[in-house]
């Protein structure tokens, strides 16, 4: 076979983001110099985004197996067993760069992409979450970005009819030039009906379904693998525009087809579009694929093979079908008014062969494209250890005044303005709405429910990446536990700066180390994830942000508790040890303008012991409300419980430690619970070796410090609710 088009040059390779070594490696694999189209395919397959070349050696360290794990990382999404023949399928993915350039479409297509990863595997999506990080509220771009991203996530999720039930949203100047938009989808399938992506059966037809291909986002994957610079905004590829309506039809059509036995393999076209989907399917099956690019449905004229292969147009899927079922599939896709085209076939050649206008335009070996992708063990340096901070050495502020300032600060202010723009109720199973520790979503036709949350505390990760990595996993585990669910598995989204800088690589490596320890200690395996590197502008990187998305299970949704105080006269108990750790606390940052000290230690044994205790108490019906203690410390947790319930409390700090440390320290492994009588709970805690201390009693319409100041719940609510809407109205 002769391949048309002249050989490509090293210069072109560099423009595509390939190094000289990588170009040479491509030539060696080909046995000749690749042409332009082939080089384009190498460059996207070997981009950081698709090949994980900087991160793979580290990701391997994460624990990915467990009794519940049906399918770990490597497929479109992770799959876990949730009993009764049901499986939960979930993953998180970033759309950081596109969202910075065009916030609405960037965020919208991020949601679309992660939904496809999940329904590709045969799951009906039942919940979305989103973890957002923006720059300083004072930065001139921030408001516009928040507005666009929130509209985009809502615009897409609301239209496809999947509830957006949770997430998080922080602000920090390190994200001024690189916001983070991480979207997570959770789907539900029968564990006997899961669909994978490995091609099989030489001769089987390769089918293209969904929307037509345009020139959108060409080289999006390589863009996601490069730093921003002054001029990158002008070099951006055509913006991808999402079409949630088409996605909704695609979900319904795919799930309808999945009822039959037609599908041999299926893969969504995500980053690097037709290239990565066809190469990955063939690669996993150890086979080859032939595509006739004339048959690819296009919406623009005169598209070149390179453009067709690299387009990142949205709402498209690639499938391999049993030949005798192709007609059935065509009928289903026509019913849903979607494009359907047979564009090629599976071969046993092990090669990717592309033809157009009757000529071969690319012919390359599939195996080496995947297995011989470069892998780097990049040099890394550990982050310097920071000293601890004793509360005694930190200025004390009157606690109520400090509380007022903290509940209204951007990171702690209510995010209601965001989640009220998301349909969090559609499908009719949202038992716990946004605003609590974890969302609780009941499974259709069952008593049981999933608990879902996303977490990361980037300032901890920056100060001590290992501790920060462990803390993110632990806090997520705690949030799931706080509603009464058993945490089962996580997905992650590793957002970091430029891995070619040893200190950034160090953040990455050490975060993984911390995550690994926490996952092992908490029986919380990683089943899917995503890496987003090069989140830097002109050499200044983001705070390291390894976001954890967790899934837990509760057998009876009616047993889940919320954080709201339920009635007056109940005893408020703090679980876990409070030492008054103020290093890296919000108290330090918001009141004293200091971002220093080491973050709170993560004692994984205590985390486990305390969490298992709290969960058992919830399931036994012994507590009426529960909230984990995290950002802002104990007094913030109490205030949030009071605001949610519209009921006050009188609380007291012990005499033997500084009050500001007690109320605002961010020690880990802690919860606040309420109960009608504390004796049994305290005894059980003592027996379980779990620290527990009565801190007060619910009642009244204010949060009152015994012997000190008070603030009405109404004023707290006003302070907490007002900031974001007021900021966005400016």
């Amino acid at each position, binding site marked *: 076979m002769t391949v048309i088009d002249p050989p490509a040059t090293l210069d072109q390779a560099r423009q595509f983001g390939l190094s000289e070594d990588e170009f040479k490696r491509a030539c060696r694999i080909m046995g000749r110099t690749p042409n332009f189209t082939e080089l384009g395919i190498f460059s996207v397959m070997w981009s950081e985004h698709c090949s994980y070349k900087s991160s793979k050696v580290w990701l391997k360290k994460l624990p990915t197996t467990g009794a519940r794990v049906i399918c770990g990382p490597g497929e479109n999404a992770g799959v876990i067993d949730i009993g009764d023949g049901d499986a939960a399928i979930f993953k998180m993915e970033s759309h950081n760069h596109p969202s910075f350039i065009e916030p609405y479409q960037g965020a919208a297509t991020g949601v679309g992409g992660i939904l496809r990863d999940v329904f590709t595997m045969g799951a009906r999506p039942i919940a979305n979450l989103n973890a957002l990080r923006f720059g300083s509220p004072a930065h001139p771009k921030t408001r516009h970005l928040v507005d666009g991203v929130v*509209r985009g996530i*809502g*615009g897409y999720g*609301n*239209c*496809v*009819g999947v509830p957006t039930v949770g997430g998080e949203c922080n602000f920090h100047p390190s994200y001024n030039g690189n916001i983070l938009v991480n979207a997570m989808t959770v789907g539900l399938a029968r564990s006997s009906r899961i669909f994978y992506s490995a091609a099989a059966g030489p001769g089987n037809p390769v089918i293209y379904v969904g929307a037509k291909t345009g020139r959108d986002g060409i080289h999006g994957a390589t863009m996601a693998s490069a730093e921003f610079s002054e001029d990158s905004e002008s070099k951006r590829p055509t913006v991808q525009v999402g*079409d*949630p*309506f*088409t996605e*909704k*039809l695609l979900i319904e059509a795919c799930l309808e087809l999945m009822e039959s036995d037609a599908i041999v393999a299926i893969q969504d076209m995500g980053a690097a579009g037709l290239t990565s989907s066809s190469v990955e399917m063939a690669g996993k099956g150890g086979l080859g694929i032939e595509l006739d690019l004339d048959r690819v449905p296009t919406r623009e004229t005169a598209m070149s093979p390179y453009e067709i292969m690299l387009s990142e147009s949205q709402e498209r899927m690639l499938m391999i079908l049993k030949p005798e079922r192709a007609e059935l599939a065509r009928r289903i896709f026509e*019913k*849903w*008014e979607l494009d359907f085209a047979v564009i090629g076939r599976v071969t046993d050649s092990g090669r990717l062969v592309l033809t157009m206008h009757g000529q071969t335009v690319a012919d390359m070996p599939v195996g080496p494209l995947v297995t011989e992708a470069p892998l780097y063990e990049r040099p890394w340096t550990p982050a310097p250890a920071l000293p601890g901070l004793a509360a005694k050495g930190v200025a004390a502020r009157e606690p109520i005044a400090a509380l007022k300032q903290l509940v209204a600060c951007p990171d702690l202010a209510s995010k209601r303005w965001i*989640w*009220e*723009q*998301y*349909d*969090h*109720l*559609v*499908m*009719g*199973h*949202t*038992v716990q*709405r946004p605003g609590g520790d974890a969302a609780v979503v*009941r499974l*259709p036709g069952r008593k049981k429910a999933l608990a879902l949350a996303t977490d990361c505390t980037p300032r901890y990760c920056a100060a001590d990446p290992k501790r920060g990595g462990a803390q993110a996993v632990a806090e997520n585990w705690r949030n799931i536990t706080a509603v009464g669910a058993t945490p089962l598995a996580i997905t992650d989204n590793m957002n970091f700066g430029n891995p070619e800088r040893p200190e950034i690589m160090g953040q990455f490596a050490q975060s993984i180390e911390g995550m690994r320890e926490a996952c092992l200690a908490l029986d919380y395996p990683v089943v899917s994830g995503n890496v987003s590197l090069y989140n830097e502008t002109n050499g200044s990187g983001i705070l390291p942000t390894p976001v954890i998305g967790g899934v837990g299970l509760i057998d009876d*949704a*009616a047993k889940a508790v919320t954080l709201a105080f339920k009635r007056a006269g109940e005893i408020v108990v703090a679980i876990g040890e409070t030492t008054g750790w103020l290093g890296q606390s919000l108290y330090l940052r918001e009141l004293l303008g200091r971002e220093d000290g080491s973050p709170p230690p993560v004692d994984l044994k205590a985390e486990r012991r305390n969490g298992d205790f709290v969960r058992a108490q919830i399931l036994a019906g012994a507590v009426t409300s529960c909230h984990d203690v995290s950002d802002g410390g104990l007094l913030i947790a109490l205030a949030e419980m009071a605001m949610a319930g519209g009921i006050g409390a009188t609380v007291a700090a012990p005499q033997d430690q500084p009050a500001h440390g007690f109320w605002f320290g961010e020690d880990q492994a802690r919860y606040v619970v309420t109960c009608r009588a504390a004796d049994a709970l305290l005894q059980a805690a003592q027996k379980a070796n779990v620290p527990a201390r009565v801190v007060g009693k619910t009642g009244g319409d204010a949060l009152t410090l015994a012997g000190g100041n008070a603030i009405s719940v109404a004023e707290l609510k006003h302070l907490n609710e007002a900031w974001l809407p007021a900021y966005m109205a400016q």
Partner: protein
Amino acid sequence: MQAAIILFPGSNREQDVHDALKRATGKEPLRVWHRDSDLPKADLIVIPGGFSYGDYLRCGAMAAHSPIMREVKARAETGTPVLGICNGFQIVTEAGLLPGVLLVNRTLRFHCKDVHLRVETSQSVYTRRYNAGQVIRVPVAHHDGNYFADKDTLDRLEGEGLVAFRYCRSDGEIDDDANANGSARAIAGILNEKRNVLGLMPHPEDATDPLLGSTDGQGFFASLAEALA
């Protein structure tokens, strides 16, 4: 009572209303794809919430002109109750079954939250189990729920007692804050002259299960079950 739920491409709250109807009547509602040639016999026709045709052009416009709507209109004329919820309300107004239109919320944003509604009439198959003046709490979830009609139409609706629900405060008072989407005269739902067609923006179907926060929507489906038994 046999209900039929009509599905358009982009409908997405059909399961919610299906479950609420089933809970109230014990009977499985039928699902009818908009291109199915005939509409089965039914005691109630429901056009559920969602984003039919992506809400592109104008919410509800494309669905309103699909062939099945001719049959729905014919049934409505013979007295069959037709219920349009949220996107369904937009569709029945676009189809001319109810007067007025739903414009974009005055905030230009999607709202998903619980609201209070004052039941304005118990004189319909949808509201007979409520008392006029009763306040109920149910969710809304829409981007275009800002009811608009000219003054004469509004006067006529009010004069003939065709306003079924209004947005209100928890104490039943009508005020501007409670009417977040900016609807004319705080209208959340209206009936046609024969009182068999109802369109409303809020979602009573999402307030029928004690686990999900409110059961105030149960009366709505109990009314239907009783009236159409």
